């Protein structure tokens, strides 16, 4: 069992992180904490992608010297890291930053309107508003 955990430790770490994020999003009442939970959730997935591109002991970065007709060179794919997941994650990091930025801006709007960031209090205030309308 322990071997099983150690052999795939990167997966375990990302799953644990992801669940921490999910828990924060579900259980925390403060909206900023929910946002931080969302960030942890996204970061967990980014770490998962980054970890699958890594090969132990093979630290070459695939810069192809032999490419584009600059002489012959033999390559073994197993000697090289897979750069694609890392490149993909650059985009995903940008997406996650943009989401955080928008969410923070929205939180400022919420705070201006309700003067609190506690979800329970906001829900009470909203209900009071709706009753006042009726």
């Amino acid at each position, binding site marked *: 069992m322990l071997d099983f955990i150690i052999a795939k430790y990167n997966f375990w770490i990302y799953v644990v992180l992801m669940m921490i994020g*999910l828990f924060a*999003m579900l259980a925390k009442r403060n*909206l900023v904490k*929910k946002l931080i939970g*969302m960030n942890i*959730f*996204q970061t967990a*997935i980014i770490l*998962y*992608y980054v970890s*699958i591109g890594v090969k132990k002991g093979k630290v070459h970065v695939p810069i192809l010297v032999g490419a584009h007709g600059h002489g012959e060179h033999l390559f073994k794919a197993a000697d090289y890291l897979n750069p694609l*997941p890392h490149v*993909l994650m650059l*985009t*995903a990091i940008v*997406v996650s930053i*943009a*989401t955080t930025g*928008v*969410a923070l*801006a*929205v*939180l400022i*709007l*919420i705070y201006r*309107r*309700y003067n609190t960031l506690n979800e329970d209090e*906001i829900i009470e205030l*909203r209900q009071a*508003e709706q009753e006042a309308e009726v």
Partner: protein
Amino acid sequence: MNGMTQQFPALIIVIPLLAALLTPLLGTLTRRLCHPWLVLIIGCAFCMSLGIAAQVITSGPISYNMGGWEPPWGIAYRIDHLNALMLVLISGTGLLGALYSGPSFAKELPGRQTYASALYLLMITSLMGIVITGDLFNVFVFLEISSLSAYGLIACGSGDAPFATFRYIIMGTIGASCYLLGVGYLYISTGSLNLADLSRLLPQLYHSHVVLTAGALMLVGLSLKMALFPLHAWLPDAYYSAPSTVSATVAPLYTKVAGYLMIRIIYYLFERRFFVEVFPITTILSWAAVVALLIGSIYAIAQKDLKKMLCYSVIAQVGYIVLGIALVNKAGFSSAILTIVSEVCTKSCIFLATGAIIYRLGNSRIDNLRHLFRRMPYTMLAFTIGAFSMVGIPPTSGFFSKLYLLFGCLEAGNWVFIAALLCSTILNVIYFFRVIKVACFEDPQPEYQRQEAYPAIEVEEVPAAMLIPILLAATSIIATGLGSFWIVDNFVKPLLKVVF
């Protein structure tokens, strides 16, 4: 000119994307140009999408390799009959919304039209990007761009729009992250992100747990994005508090684009037997869809506000699309596509009309709609056509999509689905005809005998820039209804040949 048409798949994304980034600059020079600019750019995109659709109908699917890189490595755009149809729908709805946005943004977002226009363009671009691309990671990026622009646009709405938006952000991000994780699982088991390449590689791996998990994660992520019951709770508040133009484009398009992705995953990425034999998730999906179309309609009846009622009706309609997809037979598949077409036209028409009502009345409480048929005859005419299509009265497009769905349920031999379908139609009648009743007929006179004259009511239609899109959307409902056999012949049948 021929070389130009070959570049349409790239230009249809690149031009609106660049234009979206230029819009704030243009806005600082002169704010008045933003509206014509928006119409011009989306009009260009609409023309290009028509060109692409014509090309697909006459000479079959188009492949376009971005930057000349071959598919498994580069990002390839592959446009078959399904994408071509979706592109026309998205850019068409976008064009109607762009026309409408002039007076609507000026009233609801005074002083903020520039940024709203920029986000609006970004939203339409990214939705077109989702449907045009053949690369799963590219889909994620466009999915997030579309969500981010929707968050921004919804948050500038009235009332408690920010809080509704925050919920939408949390749920939308979980959905997108699930999808991304699913793509990651497919990547570690195959090493590819290209949809066509993956569909070739995956059949050998159907019994791998990683692939099963990937399928489940992607479908759950998309169900969140399309607000399939029981993952729908974020939708009504968010769409309700959005500005009129935004809800009139977000409501018809977002859930349907997610529906399109679901079709791609179930029928194209995996073979359909995977979701029937190996991993029978379609059974779960179809039951969730049946509950969605009943619960959505029941909630809609309970609403006292027209726009809120329509938001719940969006949830019900998601049920029709998913049911069609999850039946996994020819009629069901056809009905899913026809429902997407009819829903985009109908929801766009109804939400545009509701936006016009809010423009005039200030709110959309159903009690306030009295005499509206005399005050706003054209808007209400369009609304009535939309309501007929929602219920499924011929010759509107809603009738034909429901007919195919009924055939699909008959083919599947599931009588519970048929009963639920008929039930939900009756529920649709209840909640739409209630609105028409209030708006059209006066309260009955005490002794059924009118003494005094009818109260004088002046016609107060909305500005032409808003009325024209409403009437065009209403026309499109009738046109797609009468032309539904043409759509089936030219778009659905070629797809059926590939899938079944």
